[in-house]
């Protein structure tokens, strides 16, 4: 059912519209804009500053990129990229160094202006006020003032983003990234991994509906990476869309709903990790030898039957598929820079 209700430029404490609303509508609204409260007379009250622009029934993509191009002088960083990150979707952005991943993320959060094409965050032009209100960003190369404590840093970002979350939000975020004990610690005394996790907490200030993470696990040890992975899964559960730019293929494969592989500023492969994976044959272990034969999962009964008919004893059968790493290496052709 297309409801066609438009919420635009909502401001704290202002009643937006007065119409009787059914439960389904309320549910839909809550999914789209969590900071509205239904009043008794059916009107909605905006309970916190969050300028949303959306049409129920036709919810725009969290991030919609069309024909995006960027040139730095004679260097083409992006050459017409199309990309969508849907609501609640976790998309991994892969590619060798210089593929244009960071440029794409920077355009999405308004740090870099595109040469051509269009990038929209929840329907709002990337870089505009409504777009920036709806996103959180962790840069690949970032630094926080060393003299600030973790709590002070989050407080600063709460003030800049207009978040009314207060101390409760800060505590929750620090807990989420396993830094609660470091609340009063200065950034300069933290390890790189702690700073990276603090960066993720900072990106989550103001409950963004789209999270842009540029290499969030680059400085983390395996435990820290697992913390981030758990965090990403929790964010997906909460319906937050995430664009994850990472070199760690195993991480991306584990958590992402879809992956997009960039090469030379262009998309060379895209899809769910399982869809991108290709059959690489059937590994058959018999009393004679272990061998790989051509075929897919559907061919397994026939292959086993043929082996048994040939007098072999079958001890094991395994369907081989390519990993994301195989797909990636095939897509980029071993290119790096």
């Amino acid at each position: 059912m297309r409801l066609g209700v438009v919420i635009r430029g909502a401001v704290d404490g202002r009643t937006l519209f007065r119409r009787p609303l059914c439960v389904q509508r309320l549910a839909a609204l809550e999914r789209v804009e969590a900071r509205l409260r239904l009043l008794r007379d059916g009107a909605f009250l905006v309970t916190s500053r969050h300028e949303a622009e959306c049409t129920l029934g036709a919810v725009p993509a969290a991030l919609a990129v069309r024909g995006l191009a960027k040139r730095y002088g004679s260097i083409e960083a992006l050459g017409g990229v199309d990309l969508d990150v849907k609501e609640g979707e976790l998309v991994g952005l892969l590619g060798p160094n210089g593929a244009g991943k960071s440029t794409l993320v920077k355009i999405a959060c308004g740090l870099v202006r595109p040469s051509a094409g269009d990038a929209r965050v929840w329907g709002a032009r990337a870089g505009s006020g409504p777009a920036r209100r709806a996103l959180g960003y962790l840069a690949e190369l970032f630094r926080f003032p060393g003299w600030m404590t973790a709590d002070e840093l989050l407080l600063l970002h709460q003030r800049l983003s207009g978040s009314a979350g207060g101390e409760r939000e800060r505590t929750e975020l620090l807990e989420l990234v396993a830094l609660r004990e470091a609340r009063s610690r200065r950034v300069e005394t933290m390890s790189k991994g702690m700073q990276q996790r603090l960066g993720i907490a900072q990106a989550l200030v103001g409950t963004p509906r789209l999270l842009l993470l540029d290499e969030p696990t680059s400085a983390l040890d395996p435990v820290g990476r697992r913390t981030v992975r758990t965090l990403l899964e929790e964010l997906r559960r909460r319906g937050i869309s995430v664009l994850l730019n990472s070199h760690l293929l195993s991480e991306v494969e584990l958590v992402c709903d879809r992956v997009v592989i960039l090469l030379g500023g262009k998309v060379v492969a895209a899809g769910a990790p399982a869809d991108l994976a290709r059959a690489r044959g059937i590994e058959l272990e018999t009393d004679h030898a272990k061998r790989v034969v051509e075929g897919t999962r559907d061919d397994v009964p026939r292959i086993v039957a043929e082996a048994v008919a040939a007098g072999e004893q079958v001890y094991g059968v395994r369907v081989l598929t390519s990993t994301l790493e195989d797909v990636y290496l095939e897509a980029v052709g071993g290119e790096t820079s």
Partner: protein
Amino acid sequence: MSAIPVIVGYGLREALRRRVFAVVLLLTIVFLVLFWVANHYVHRELGTLQVPSDVPVDARTFASAFLSGLALFATMFLGVVLAVFLTLGAVRGDVERGLLQPLVVRPIGRSTFLIARFLGAFAVTAPYVIAVDLAAVVITGLTMNWWPDQIVTPPLEVAAAVGVVTALSLLGSVFLSSTANGIAIFMLFGAGLVAGLLGTIGHAIGSTAIKHASTVAAYLTPFEGLYQDALRQLTVSTSGLTGFLLQLGPFGGAYVHGWGVRLWALGFFVLVGAAALAGFRRRDL
């Protein structure tokens, strides 16, 4: 615009935590103590100085005005140093260090950010310059028993001059790295001072060409024009041979002065600010 106090506070707290203010306060106290010592010895020497009766020079006024001019220069120099170090890496420097990106992706607007950085720096440097210059005036007044013809206007003009340099430093920070910007601003500041001294020499020897070149330079660097006007205000009512001799000295009067240079300085400030805002808005970070 509601983010302005937040960013101003952020800048001030950073300066406080990095002990910038502690260092400035300490060195300022050292400067004022040395200035008091200088005033004390000059006053003592004046007691033994015998000016020929046929030379109509007021030695006390001459020496006191000279010292006040020196204090005005020192105050402006300290204010400029403070302003430049607070702003020289505000944009490109902080981008290179990765400090700026997390802040400007917030819904605050780049113009708001830059205006807040200016206000943060100016909120420190302007009161500083005014306070230090007034302290110097009090020291000279109590020690030498001499007060400038205008007490309030000179520090206000020097504060405005520091504001112009702050705006230039922010403009430079949009395009230049911290080191390059610092060098550029201090060279520009030095060039302005040299042009001022050149103008004084041109005035003394009556060279129209030098005076013309110096006037053009003063308008190109209006902080120098404001400084010259501030110096002039110190002895604006002093006349006779004393006034003439003061005009010839390095801390003497101004060949560029009045509302013309003040209004031009304001226009220049607006132009520099607009260029900085436009440059920052278009800049890829």
